[in-house]
């Protein structure tokens, strides 16, 4: 029969399901990534060298024998995309009208219900991250090579990023923790849902506190290093015990100084390739 | 004036009303339903224990069939019922339950193999057969010889009402919620619909229909303490009574349930005793076997209630700030059973008493529970005095319960009567009699009369307080028209109620004509008093004891003089209802009057009983097939709609 398609009843619209999955998946990946991220960043607590090692690791240094900072850029770009997707999907849930906002506030105050309150926390923290997180993300994307004990510490302290990071720390940990808990109750198949939820809630708060403490300690460590390193701001970290590909290249290091992100030649494999810094 | 037309106006959104509407709809008519509350909140929702139907699936139900169910029902009624109707009922109940099973009620099912049960205080092991696995199971209930009460945990009424309501929604039948029928529109011969008040806006409208069905439930709330919902105020009975032509039947037949909790009268189901619970007194003694050695705690409800009252009179009650009570003990059933099969009971104990029934005894006492009486109809559900007026469910005196209803027979009645009366309503509508011929002038007249009535209440200076009058009425009914009755008390009850009725015209109200609870009470009060008066008068006149109607001054069941049905009619302008009586014909009974087997035999026989018994015995001795015997003794199939005449299949009785 040649009835035009448009006269047929619409097939089921699969997109709401996909978007829901996407929102959860993006949240899940972001949430788990943020925890791992925290663990990586906190390597500073084990010493400068540990942190340096982790940073270089992600540049593929230990695979290729030389760092590929664009790997980090690419990864950050991916996270950025995920972040944007997640934020865009989450926007659908925001109270967009004043009436909705008021209804929610009134309800929240009357109910005094933890999970209802926590969702509002998620909205607030999510909203704030909307503005704050891109700053960090962009920096990392643009200057992946400037991730290192001194480099990061300088950024934190001399670059005055610490207030932003302090706020982001709380935003991310609260938001991510609540988000992952929510994911579990949203999709989870538990034998005893009530008991499971109680345990999840405890776990969630435990992890949030853990990561907040870890995050604060880490930030403090960077601040401390940053303060100590302030006179040499811009000077990059040079791992002493490391056999570097070209010590000659490195002798230039630290000559710039002054700016937040002084033009620094990153690691170079045999001088064959240089990545330009910001100038 | 707003006029709304439909083919069938169903007043009442409980099980009975909604099932009637479905039947009519399926016959191609346009029904509409009125309800005081959202239909799913009707009191049918509160039925806990179960629905009787002789499926004979479970081990203790094996051998059950319509005959046994019929006989239990007639005995339960103390021979006061219409046996043909009881027959129709017993025959259709299995069909009703199977239909509900198909529609979605999650009846509990037989689990093949061994399981534990508590019978007569003893743990026993029962073995269910393999081929019954997954079929609808049943529990024990009072006054039945087989386990016949099918259930969904202890939320049977809920499961049934939700399923039937969902079908009503599926079949797009309009339910006008929060709409109250105030008066029937009629011309003295033919009912044309009702004047309806919107309980939100207060607006009156005329609902006109070919057939009008009263399915408004019981009138328990004229007693102070009742297991009934607060909306069961007998407004359906009042609607019929106020026509001045339609009659109410057996209004004095009122059941008191043995186990309602203190102080609020919330019911805990008979399923508690059916599943093995027992009654205990102040000493923890299980007293029912002392009175009823055979049926013990599972004697018929009227009997257990009276025995409890007797026992309390003998000083064995437990004293409490809310009066005396006895204990219901279900601890031996175990927490697992209670969690699974008596969940509502557990909730009620937890929320209203703060106790755990798996560990503690439940304080109970007999409490008003069920109205056997109601709008008198023929077997088709139609009033014999007002054509086009039908009634079914607890509101009706179709009369399968006589003077005492068996537990589980009521929700069964609602759906069975719904199915049958629905067909007859459709037959009526599709016949010449069902033609609608009403002038809107008549409708206007009725609406205006009600409007004036309401305006008069609002304008009243208010010498009387409605709450006080109502409390007094409730007290009178509880004290003088309760479980035990006697002449002097009933006489004073009638006199006092009549006086209250006169005073109720003086009630004044603040506020307006719209959503105003004060106004609602003011206009319902005189109607309730009228219903109360028909109950009290019926009880006063009936100088015998039968079923739930117990006269201390006339303890014998007197078949010779009282094997009849009370009919009450209230002519306009009269101060009291007029009573007359409809004889029950012993010579046409399949089960002639006999001894129910409780207490000492105290019966004054009807002269026809012996000859009829001889006929019946002879027939039974012939050892014919049970269907043949039955049809010879009292044929009834021809009364049923064609579609419901077929035999019921059972595991042991395959269809021919």
């Amino acid at each position, binding site marked *: 029969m040649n009835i035009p398609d448009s006269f047929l009843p619409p097939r089921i619209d699969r997109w709401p399901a996909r978007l829901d999955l996407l929102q959860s998946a993006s949240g899940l990946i972001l949430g788990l990534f943020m925890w791992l991220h925290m663990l990586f960043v906190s390597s500073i607590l084990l010493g400068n060298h540990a942190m340096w090692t982790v940073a270089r690791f992600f540049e593929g240094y230990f695979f290729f024998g030389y760092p590929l900072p664009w790997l980090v850029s690419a990864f950050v770009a991916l996270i950025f995309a995920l972040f944007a997707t997640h934020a865009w999907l989450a926007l659908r849930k925001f109270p967009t009208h004043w009436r909705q906002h008021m209804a929610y506030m009134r309800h929240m105050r009357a109910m005094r*219900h933890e999970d209802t309150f926590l969702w509002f926390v998620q909205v607030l923290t999510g909203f704030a991250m909307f503005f704050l997180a891109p700053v960090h993300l962009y920096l990392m994307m643009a200057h992946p090579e400037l991730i290192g004990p001194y480099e990061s510490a300088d950024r934190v302290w001399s670059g005055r990023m610490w207030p932003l990071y302090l706020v982001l720390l709380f935003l991310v940990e609260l938001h991510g923790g609540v988000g992952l808990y929510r994911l579990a109750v949203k999709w989870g198949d538990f034998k005893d849902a009530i008991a499971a939820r109680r345990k999840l809630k405890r776990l969630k708060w435990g992890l949030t506190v853990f990561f907040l403490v870890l995050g604060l300690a880490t930030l403090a460590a960077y601040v401390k290093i940053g303060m100590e390193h302030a006179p040499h701001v811009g000077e990059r970290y040079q791992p002493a015990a490391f056999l570097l590909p070209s010590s000659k290249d490195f002798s230039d290091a630290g000559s710039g100084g002054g700016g937040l992100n002084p033009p620094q030649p990153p690691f170079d494999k045999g001088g064959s390739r240089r990545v330009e810094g910001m100038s | 004036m707003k006029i709304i037309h439909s083919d069938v106006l169903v007043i009442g959104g409980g099980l009975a009303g909604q099932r009637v509407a479905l039947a009519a709809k399926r016959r191609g008519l346009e029904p509409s339903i009125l309800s005081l509350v959202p239909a799913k*909140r009707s009191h049918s929702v509160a039925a806990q224990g179960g629905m009787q139907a002789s499926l004979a699936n479970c081990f203790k139900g094996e051998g059950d069939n319509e005959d046994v169910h019929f006989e239990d029902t007639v005995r339960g009624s103390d021979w006061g019922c219409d046996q043909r109707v009881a027959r129709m009922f017993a025959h259709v109940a*299995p069909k009703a339950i199977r239909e509900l099973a198909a529609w979605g009620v999650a009846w509990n099912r037989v689990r093949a193999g061994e399981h534990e049960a508590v019978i007569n205080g003893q743990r026993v092991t029962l073995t269910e057969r393999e081929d019954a696995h997954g079929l609808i199971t049943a529990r024990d209930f009072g006054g039945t010889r087989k386990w016949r009460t099918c259930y969904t945990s202890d939320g049977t009424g809920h499961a049934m009402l939700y399923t039937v309501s969902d079908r009503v929604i599926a079949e797009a039948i309009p339910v006008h919620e929060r709409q109250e029928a105030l008066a029937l529109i009629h011309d003295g011969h033919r009912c044309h619909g009702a004047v309806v008040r919107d309980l939100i806006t207060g607006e009156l409208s005329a609902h006109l229909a070919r057939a009008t069905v009263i399915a408004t439930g019981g009138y328990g709330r004229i007693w102070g303490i009742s297991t009934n919902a607060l909306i069961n105020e007998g407004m359906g009975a009042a609607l019929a009574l106020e026509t001045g032509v339609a009659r109410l039947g057996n209004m004095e037949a009122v059941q008191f349930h043995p186990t309602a909790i203190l102080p*609020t009268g*919330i019911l805990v189901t008979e399923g508690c005793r059916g599943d093995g619970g027992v009654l205990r007194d102040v000493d923890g003694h299980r007293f029912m076997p002392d009175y009823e050695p055979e049926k013990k705690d599972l004697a018929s409800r009227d009997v257990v209630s009276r025995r409890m009252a007797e026992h309390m009179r003998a000083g064995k009650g437990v004293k409490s700030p809310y009066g005396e009570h006895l204990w219901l003990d279900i601890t031996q059933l175990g927490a697992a059973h209670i969690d699974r099969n008596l969940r509502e009971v557990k909730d009620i104990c937890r929320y209203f008493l703060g106790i755990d029934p798996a560990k503690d005894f439940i304080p109970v006492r007999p409490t008003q529970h069920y109205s056997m009486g109601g709008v008198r109809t023929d077997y088709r559900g139609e009033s014999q005095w007002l054509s086009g007026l039908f009634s079914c469910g607890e509101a009706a005196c179709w009369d399968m319960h006589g003077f005492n209803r068996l537990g589980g027979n009521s929700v069964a009645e609602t759906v069975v009567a719904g199915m049958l009366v629905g067909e007859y309503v459709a037959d009526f509508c599709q016949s010449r009699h069902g033609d609608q011929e009403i002038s809107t002038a008549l409708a206007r007249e009725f609406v205006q009369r009600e409007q004036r009535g309401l305006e008069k209440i609002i304008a009243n200076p208010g010498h009387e307080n409605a709450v006080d009058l109502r409390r007094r009425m409730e007290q009178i009914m509880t004290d003088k028209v309760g479980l035990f009755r006697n002449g002097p008390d009933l006489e004073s009850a009638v006199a006092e109620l009549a006086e209250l009725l006169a005073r109720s015209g003086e009630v004044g109200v603040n506020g307006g004509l719209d959503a105003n609870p004060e106004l609602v009470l003011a206009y319902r009060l005189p109607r309730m008093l009228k219903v109360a008066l028909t109950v009290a008068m019926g009880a006063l006149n009936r100088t015998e004891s039968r079923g739930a109607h117990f006269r201390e001054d006339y303890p014998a069941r007197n078949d010779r003089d009282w094997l009849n049905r009370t009919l009450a009619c209230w002519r306009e302008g009269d101060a009291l209802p007029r009573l007359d009586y409809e004889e029950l014909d012993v010579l046409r009974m399949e089960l002639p009057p006999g001894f129910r087997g409780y207490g000492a035999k105290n019966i004054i026989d009807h002269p026809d009983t012996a000859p009829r018994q001889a006929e019946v015995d002879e027939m039974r001795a012939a050892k014919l097939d049970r269907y043949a015997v039955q049809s010879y003794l009292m044929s009834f199939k021809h009364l049923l709609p064609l579609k419901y005449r*077929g035999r019921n299949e059972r595991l042991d009785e395959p269809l021919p």
Partner: protein
Amino acid sequence: MTASRTLTFHVFRHNPRDSGGEPGVREYQVEETPGMTLFIALTRIREEHDPGLSFDFVCRAGVCGSCAMLINGRPGLACRTLTSELPGTISLFPLPGFELIADLSVNTGKWMRAMSERLQAWVHLGSEVNPNQIEAAMDPDLAEAVYELDRCIECGCCVAACGTALMRPDFVGAVGMNKLARFRLDPRDDRSDAEYYQLIGDDSGIFGCMSLLGCQDVCPKELSLQTQIAFMRRAMARQGL
């Protein structure tokens, strides 16, 4: 027993059809008695102080779902709430999310009927059965599981406890999702997941739920709403793959 308290009630009073009337709160004092429920207290208030006060009680035994209201801010069934479990000052408000009739009375029935119609919340039968024949067998555990979900009393507490529903009036609420979970579990309903998806596969349905779980925490029947919603979400999400 402790000395009896005098309870102070703050009760919402408003009749939306009364053109001049402003919503307000009235205060009443009631002597507490042993075993007093909010049903008893409100009845006393109506009988002794304010005969025009509107509220809905039907079964007064916690089974019909009529009397849900906000009790000190939380939705609950008033009839089975003992005053002894509440502080001396009790605030009572009508359930949000539903049309106000007057005072504490809201039109849950209308909402529920609309929800049922929209979700086609009834068993969709393949064909009518012959009621003379033995019923189709059903696994006993399955029957119990279906009843478990069937215990919803449509009181509206879950809707009033749901931030999503209050922000988005077209949201079906836990009551709706639980109903479809019930019918999906029921072998007598012959709908496929694609058909359920048509009914709730969007943001006013299952994907609109933000898992705030107010529903789970206030449901008077303690239904496993969290589990049912997650279950439906998984089933419906599979349709998107």
